């Protein structure tokens, strides 16, 4: 006899809340009793109603029983603009009832009787009890309260009906109440404030019968309802892969030569430099080399697609052709009010949808500052990097250095150095009362590279790497000076070399 013959597996059902089923490793178990806890405004009502309408859409019968909660009319008014709302489901597949009077007049026993009768009369598969704290307040003892939950569990098991008990929670977050020990699962919703920003977070604190993604996961509420963004490092299943042996040209011949032919496929590169130095132009050139077989994605925090096309045209980079062919996609992300995981999942979704192999993320600093928990940034980037590598994506991040001229380089790489395989540094250098731009390769993992510090120019046809600044020293300080020999023999070149052909 196999274990499957001995005890059949409990069926699961999907929640209809994007991202949540990934956290739950496949959805809730039918016949379970789950507590959903959170302070007022945390999103419990939307959470429950989204599940209700999803189940009703699948032809299931759902009962939504309120205790001390907002009126049904007001509740439906608030929900009707959500995309999951379906007026046609009410009341035949989704019925809203109030059980408060029964609870007031007959106590927990009367409420249990009401639930039992309605459950049978309506053949309900799902029951929401909104205002569960009122049940606890009506119970004279903890034992009576636990008996109530126990009877719900028996009813759930007999009818394969699932119960969700929505509670504002009467004790502090993280506390364990006696009733928590009895239910099959506990989901906590919270709305935390970090500085002036707020971030919604979901935590599955208990989930019987299955593994699940532990810890905090951010979620958002929009007109689409709730969407959960599983913490990327907790849900990433991709194993780390080495970067490939073939190389992807950046489309800047001199720089590609310095790199030994280009960046290794599936590698992660960071371009560091102050604002305006030309990091983005390098990224645009990288994307302009995209083809139907090697599609490119720009994920920008600063430039809208329209502005990108105008800007690239202005510097002689033909990104529009690739965009028109569908080989390049331009995505813009607001740098404010979004969470790290929401951004990470959006990048992965766009990569998957396009089948992108070249990715340029313009605005590493914005991505980094989206995290409400800075200490997890390295783990997040490691997970994102693994996912992108597994998809065969070669990634370039543009990161801003705040100091324009400084002997110190404060790179935004705390804990990230091992994750960045290639590092390019672009700087402004003052030399002989002129502002010059330099580019150097700091790191190119597992590859030899040209260590020269080269001068480059931004021109109407893009970016030209000119030559190494042989005649100058202390370039890395930002304020260079000519070497004595060069002062005597050869001036430092100022104009770009004419390109051959």
């Amino acid at each position: 006899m196999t274990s499957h013959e001995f005890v059949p597996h409990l069926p699961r059902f999907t929640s209809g809340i994007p991202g949540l089923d990934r956290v739950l490793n496949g959805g809730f178990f039918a016949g379970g009793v789950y507590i959903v806890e959170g302070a007022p405004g945390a999103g419990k009502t939307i959470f429950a109603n989204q599940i209700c309408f999803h189940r009703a859409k699948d032809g299931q019968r759902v009962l939504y029983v309120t205790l001390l909660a907002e009126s049904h009319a007001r509740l439906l008014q608030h929900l009707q603009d959500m995309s999951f709302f379906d007026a046609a489901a009410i009341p035949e597949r989704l019925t809203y009832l109030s059980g408060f009077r029964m609870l007031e007049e007959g106590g927990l026993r009367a409420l249990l009787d009401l639930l039992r009768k309605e459950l049978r009369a309506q053949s309900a598969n799902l029951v929401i009890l909104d205002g569960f704290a009122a049940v606890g307040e009506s119970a004279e003892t903890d034992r009576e309260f636990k008996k109530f939950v126990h009877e719900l569990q028996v009813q759930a098991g007999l009818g394969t009906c699932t119960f969700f008990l929505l509670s504002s929670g009467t004790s502090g977050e993280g506390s364990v109440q006696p009733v928590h020990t009895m239910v099959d699962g506990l989901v906590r919703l919270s709305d935390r404030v970090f500085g002036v920003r707020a971030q919604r977070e979901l935590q599955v604190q208990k989930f019987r019968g299955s593994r699940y993604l532990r810890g905090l996961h951010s979620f958002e509420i929009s007109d689409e309802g709730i969407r959960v963004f599983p913490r990327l490092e907790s849900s990433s299943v991709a194993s780390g892969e080495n970067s490939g042996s073939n190389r992807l040209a950046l489309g800047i011949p001199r720089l590609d030569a310095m790199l030994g032919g280009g960046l290794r496929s599936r590698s992660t590169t960071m371009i560091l430099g102050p604002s305006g130095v030309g990091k983005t132009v390098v990224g645009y050139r990288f994307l302009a080399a995209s083809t139907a077989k090697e599609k490119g994605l720009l994920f920008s925090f600063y430039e809208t697609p329209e502005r990108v096309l105008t800007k690239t045209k202005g510097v002689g980079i033909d990104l529009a052709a690739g965009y028109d062919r569908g080989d390049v996609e331009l995505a813009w992300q607001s740098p404010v009010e979004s969470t790290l995981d929401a951004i990470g999942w959006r990048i992965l979704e766009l990569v998957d949808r396009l089948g992108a192999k070249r990715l340029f993320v313009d605005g590493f600093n914005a991505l980094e500052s989206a995290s409400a928990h800075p200490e997890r940034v390295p783990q997040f980037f490691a997970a994102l990097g693994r996912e992108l590598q597994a998809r065969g994506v070669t990634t370039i991040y543009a990161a801003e250095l705040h100091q324009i001229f400084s002997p110190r380089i404060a790179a935004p790489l705390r804990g990230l150095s091992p994750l960045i395989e290639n590092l390019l540094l672009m700087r402004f250098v003052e030399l002989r009362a002129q502002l010059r731009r330099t580019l150097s390769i700091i790191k190119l993992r597992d590859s030899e590279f040209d260590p020269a510090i080269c001068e480059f120019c931004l021109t109407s046809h893009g970016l030209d790497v000119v030559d190494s600044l042989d005649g100058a020293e202390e370039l890395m300080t930002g304020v260079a000076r000519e070497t004595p020999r060069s002062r005597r023999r050869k001036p430092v070149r100022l104009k770009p070399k004419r390109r051959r052909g």
Partner: protein
Amino acid sequence: MKTIVIVDDEFALADVLTATLSDIGFHVLSAANGKRGLEVMAEHPPNLVILDYMMPLLDGAGVLKAMRADPKLSAVPVIMMSAAPESVVRTRCQGYVAFLRKPFDFETILNAVQRVTAGP
């Protein structure tokens, strides 16, 4: 004094309506579910019933059907109310004199009550 029975599981609305209609001279009784509503009507024959559609134990459609089958209640006018639109309610309920979509303002319910109870 005319008697009104309010049958609604949502206690807050039922309580406010009971108090308000009592203030303007009606004798008002309320019940929190359809089954209890029919019991109240049997004990206190009403001149008007204000009936919610979605309720536990016996819903508005069930109450209306039972009333129409009862010679003592068959002629009693009913104002139906629901958070669901009337197009949904009408598929299961016939024979009510007015429909009020929740949430409604006080003037709306007052006008409906006065119109229905204005007869001899």
